[in-house]
Structures are given as structure tokens and as C-alpha cells.
């Protein structure tokens, strides 16, 4: 009898786990929809700012802002966007692996890489890996604002301006679909070449204040900030999608486990009944 009681407790505990994973799956599904919407919202800002930068750059081809000039890479800056919480499958660890592989591909010693870590998981991981961490930001929540991120981004931009780092890359997850998220590493600075506009670049803006350089500098900073914000929001959508899938798998596994345990439990119960019956039969035969 003792064995069947144990199995019963085990079944209840798996059932409870199933309830939790089921609830987490539904929560993640609704959060994913919201995050996806936010991701779409911010896109037009960075697109527009990019067109403006393209116009200014093409009408002032003699002047190159330092954010646009490639220089030999002696030191690399790397922004890593991760989630704050776990239970989202291999999302974070895949990203970290891809980032480390990229850093190794650059053939720089790990001391020559400055990390800017966004999200608690990245902070925990890179603490054990080593590497110089210059900026961190955690507890972003589900709905971060640009102003939360500006501090960390500014540290990297200042480092780029001071020639401390020669290239800035960002590693985050790309939202391909609900079922699929891929780690992606992109170069933020110097700006990858903008696609050339139509040939008729004869017009130019009136500038207020009358200096294209200061304006361009401000625009570029804002552009980078909005890019990082975009990546962070996209990563949140990825996190929720990955969590949804992970929790769905966990729920399915729990159901399977419950079925197996029930089978064992019933077998045990039947064996017990058969045994009791045969004992009774033997008893009557003896009388």
C-alpha cells in the first residue's frame, strides 16, 4: 500500500507543476503579443532618422562624421542584450555562445573587448567568463523606455568618441517567428554604409543651427539609441516567444509523465486487489 501512496503524491506534484507551466505559457503568449506590437511601433522612428542621416551624409560628402569612418580595430565594444529571467529555453545561452564565437573570430585577446551588458542573465554569465564589463543594466521589465538605456549606451558612445573602442557591435536575438529566434550580431558603429539615394542629390537642407556637423552628431546619437532600444524590445518579444514554447514543451512532458505514473499506479492497485482476493480464496479453502 505504501508504494501506491507514494505514486499518488508524485502524480499530484506533477499535476501542480503542469498547472504552473500551463499558466506561464498563457502569460508568455499574451506578453509576446504586446512586445511584438511595441517592436513594430518603434520601427518608423529609426527608419526616418536613417533617411535624414542619409540625406545629410550624401549632400556633405566632403565631411565624414567619426561615426561613419572605419578605422583599424584595436579594441572592440560589445553590447549584449539578454533577458532578465530564465525559463526560456536556450535563448540566452545560444546568444552568448554566438557572441563569444564572434569575439574569437575577431582574433582579439579577451582583455581587448569591452562589454556592455543589458539584462541579468548576461551579467551573470559574463561574470564567470571574464572580460572587461564597462556598463550593465538590469531589471528592464516588460516595457523598457529609451531613457532607461541611455546611460549604458552613452558609456559605449563616449568610449567610441575617445578612441577607447574602435568598433561597437550589438548581440541580440532576432524574432524570425514565434517558433524561431536566432542570435544576431550586428555592427552599430561605425555605421554600416547607407544605401545610396536616388541620383538627384542636388538639393540640401537649410540648417538650423547653421552647422550640419552638430546636427548630424545629435541625429546619429539618437539613431544609435533608437537602434539599441529596438533590439532590446525585439529581444523581449523573443524571450516571451521562447518562454511560451519552453513552457508548452514542459506542459506536454508533464502530461506524459502523469499518464505513465497513472499506469504504474493502476497496475499496483490491481496487483493488490488480486492478492487480497487470492488470500480470501485461500482462507475459505482452508476452512
Amino acid at each position, binding site marked *: 500500500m505504501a508504494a501506491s501512496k507514494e505514486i499518488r503524491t508524485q502524480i499530484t506534484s506533477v499535476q501542480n507543476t503542469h498547472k504552473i507551466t500551463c499558466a506561464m505559457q498563457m502569460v508568455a503568449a499574451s506578453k509576446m503579443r504586446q512586445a511584438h506590437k511595441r517592436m513594430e*511601433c518603434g520601427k*518608423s522612428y529609426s527608419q526616418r*532618422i536613417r533617411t*535624414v542621416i542619409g540625406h545629410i551624409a550624401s549632400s556633405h560628402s566632403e565631411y565624414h562624421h567619426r561615426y561613419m569612418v572605419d578605422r583599424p580595430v584595436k579594441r572592440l565594444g560589445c553590447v549584449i542584450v539578454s533577458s532578465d529571467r530564465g525559463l526560456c529555453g536556450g535563448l540566452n545561452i545560444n546568444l552568448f555562445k554566438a557572441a563569444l564565437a564572434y569575439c574569437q573570430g575577431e582574433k582579439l585577446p579577451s582583455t581587448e573587448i569591452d562589454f556592455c551588458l543589458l539584462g541579468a542573465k548576461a551579467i551573470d554569465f559574463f561574470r564567470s567568463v571574464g572580460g572587461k564589463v564597462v556598463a550593465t543594466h538590469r531589471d528592464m521589465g516588460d516595457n523598457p523606455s529609451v531613457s532607461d538605456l541611455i546611460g549604458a549606451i552613452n558609456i559605449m558612445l563616449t568610449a567610441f568618441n575617445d578612441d577607447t573602442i574602435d568598433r561597437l557591435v550589438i548581440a541580440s536575438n532576432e524574432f524570425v517567428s514565434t517558433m524561431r529566434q536566432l542570435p544576431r550580431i550586428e555592427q552599430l558603429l561605425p555605421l554600416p554604409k547607407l544605401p545610396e539615394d536616388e541620383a538627384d542629390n542636388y538639393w540640401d537642407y537649410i540648417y*538650423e543651427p547653421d552647422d550640419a556637423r552638430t*546636427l548630424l552628431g545629435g541625429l546619429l546619437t539618437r539613431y544609435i539609441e533608437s537602434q539599441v532600444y529596438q533590439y532590446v524590445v525585439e529581444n523581449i518579444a523573443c524571450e516571451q516567444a521562447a518562454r511560451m514554447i519552453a513552457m508548452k514543451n514542459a506542459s506536454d512532458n508533464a502530461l506524459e509523465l502523469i499518464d505513465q505514473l497513472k499506469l504504474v499506479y493502476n497496475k499496483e492497485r490491481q496487483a493488490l486487489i488480486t492478492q487480497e482476493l487470492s488470500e480470501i480464496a485461500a482462507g475459505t479453502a482452508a476452512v
Partner: protein
Amino acid sequence: MRCDIVSAEKDIFSGEAEMVAATGELGELGIFPGHAPLISALVPGTVTIKIDDNEEKVFYISGGYIEVQPSWVTILADVVMRAEDIDEKLATQTRRKAEKSLAEQQSKLDYTLAASRLAESAAQLRTLRRLRKRLP
């Protein structure tokens, strides 16, 4: 003339407009259709969009850039608030606090911070006053 106000976090306004007024770094800007291409930094202030003779929309922005083309205007804003959403109490409070810390002038960092706070809250209050004047 097409007018869009976008911030990094969301699209605020998008539609046809007869006139757009904003506060540029070098002074007030009033833009009608057919304006020459212009790009300007914006300081904290009010953006008014005249949609037609009867309708106007008022926004508060904390800074950003305006891009003008003959047939469209794009405002790339840092933080945008619909004028109706401004919290007057909070704005007045911030202004008072900023004025106080300006008067005390402790360190340079505090000074710039307080100055920008003051500019922002003053602009918010100005926007509110404008909105009030219009409402019957």
C-alpha cells in the same frame, strides 16, 4: 501637407495638416506647405498642428529634430505628450524645485540638470496655457 510625429517608442501623430508650428533652437518655426527643405533641432516646447480651420492638435515635446520637405514634415521627438495628458501639478512642482536649485547653484552638474528641468517644465506649462486659451 503630410505631418508625422514619431518618437523612438511609438508613432504619435500622422496625418494631413495645413500648418505646423514648433519651437526650433533658433526660434519659433511656422511651416506651411511648399516650405524649403529644412532641418532643425527642437528645444522643449509646444508643437501645434493645424489640421483645418476648426481643428488643431497640441503636443508637448521635450526636444528632438524637425525635418521639413515641401510636401511633408517629420518631427523626430525625444518624448512627446499630448497636451491633455500633461500633469499640471507635477509640472508646477518641478518648476518650483528647479528654480530653487538654480538659486542655490551647488555644483555645475546640478546646475545643468536643473536648467534643463526648468526649461522642460516651463514648456509644459506654456503648452497647457495655450491649450486652455483655445478651449471655450
